């Protein structure tokens, strides 16, 4: 179960706060997955008590977008901590789907990759199994496939440390990279933090989703929770 709250001393109107939390939540807590299961209790609450002496922030206020961005970035940091503490997790993985026709399509694809047990076990085993990533993209439940054009699709692993080359292309314009540097792939997959980048090439929207690997330890923890 995900529970959380964010509190601030700014004065924010109820309508402003609702819009802020909705925007931030859609790009943070609704973009994480440990195991693909949704709880009956998930709740994120935000309170603004107005202890700071400044005019009330409303949707129309000049500062609204600035604060909304700050709250979103803050919520992302908090949400990412949950993934880092995923039961049994040894890796923190950012799945970035970019250049999508719509945000919703980018999110659906990112979420499908993030929830794939086979992708997650490959990440644990440090196996550069890009076929599983493609497979997940292919069965993602998009309303239509206008965001997805085979010849424009690119998939890469990206290192998050300063090592070079940072990006390892696995699929280039719909064609598998048959000369994947397996040694470099192993180096990237051995990192505790790494990124999977899917470039759809059909638009300009993007979504980041955060997930972790699936390990033996996850099974140990969850085979014996109630007792």
């Amino acid at each position, binding site marked *: *179960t*995900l*529970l*959380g*709250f964010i*509190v*601030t*001393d*700014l004065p924010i109107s*109820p309508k*402003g*706060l*609702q819009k802020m*939390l*909705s925007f931030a939540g859609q790009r943070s*807590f*609704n973009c*994480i*997955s*440990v*195991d693909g*299961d*949704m*709880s*009956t*209790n*998930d*709740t*994120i*609450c*935000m*309170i603004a*008590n*107005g*202890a*700071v*002496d*400044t005019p*009330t922030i409303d949707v129309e206020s000049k*500062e609204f977008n*600035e*604060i909304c961005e*700050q709250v979103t970035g*803050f919520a992302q*940091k*908090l949400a990412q*901590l*949950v*993934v*880092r*503490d*995923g*039961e049994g997790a*040894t890796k923190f993985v950012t799945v970035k789907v970019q250049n999508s026709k719509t945000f919703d399509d980018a999110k659906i694809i990112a979420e499908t990759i993030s929830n794939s047990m086979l992708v997650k076990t490959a990440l*644990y*085993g*440090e196996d550069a199994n890009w076929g599983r990533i493609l497979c997940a993209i292919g069965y993602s439940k998009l309303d239509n496939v206008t965001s997805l054009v085979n010849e424009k699709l690119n998939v890469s692993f990206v290192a998050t440390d300063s090592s070079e080359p940072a990006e390892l292309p696995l699929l280039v314009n719909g064609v598998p990279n048959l000369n994947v540097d397996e040694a470099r792939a192993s180096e990237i997959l051995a990192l*505790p933090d790494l990124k999977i980048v899917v470039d759809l090439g059909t638009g300009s929207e993007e979504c980041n989703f955060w997930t972790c690997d699936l390990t033996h330890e996850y099974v140990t*923890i969850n085979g014996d929770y*109630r007792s």
Partner: protein
Amino acid sequence: NSGKKVVDKYALYVPKTGVFPKGYEVGSFASGVKKNGNLDLGVIVNTNRTNFESSASAVFTTNRFKAAPVLKSKQVLENSQYRNINAIVVNSGCANSMTGEVGMKDAEAMCQLVNTTLGTPDSTLVMSTGVIGQKLQMNKISHGITEILQNKSNYGSDFPAWLNLAKSICTTDTFPKLITSSFKLSTTGKEYTLTGIAKGAGMICPNMA
């Protein structure tokens, strides 16, 4: 993989200090709902009494079977028009989910006890996490709420109080999740603070609305 380096996540991700927003006090208590005796109950209270009436918002699970605290908090927010919410009470160890009418009464009783103690009617939200399908041990919870709000157990606005609150909502988490940041408004230069606490390690793929 057996040779993988073990990372001390607590040392990496738990802060050792922090600045917190003005006008909040928090408390926590080990009520005994958790079998291991760890902290399992927390309360956050808005103590700001300026002219501004606090505002609140929340996003909730879209699971069709919503737990009693979800239904109760939603009701409180709607009835209050998202204003004048002054406390959140959270317990861990028992989710108070799939508990029917008894569960609703227990969630209401938790809110009511906080409201009565603080003297602020209809201004408390409630959250629960833990095992699904078990009733709350309300005698322990009620005692714990009294300990926090009347006897001020682990109660305050300093870093240890906030960290203990973060610990009190954990279940299988290996570290408490507490972050805090201050920002300056570009228009006026006024500084404000955001503090966030979360819990979760498994059953995580929220789709809240």
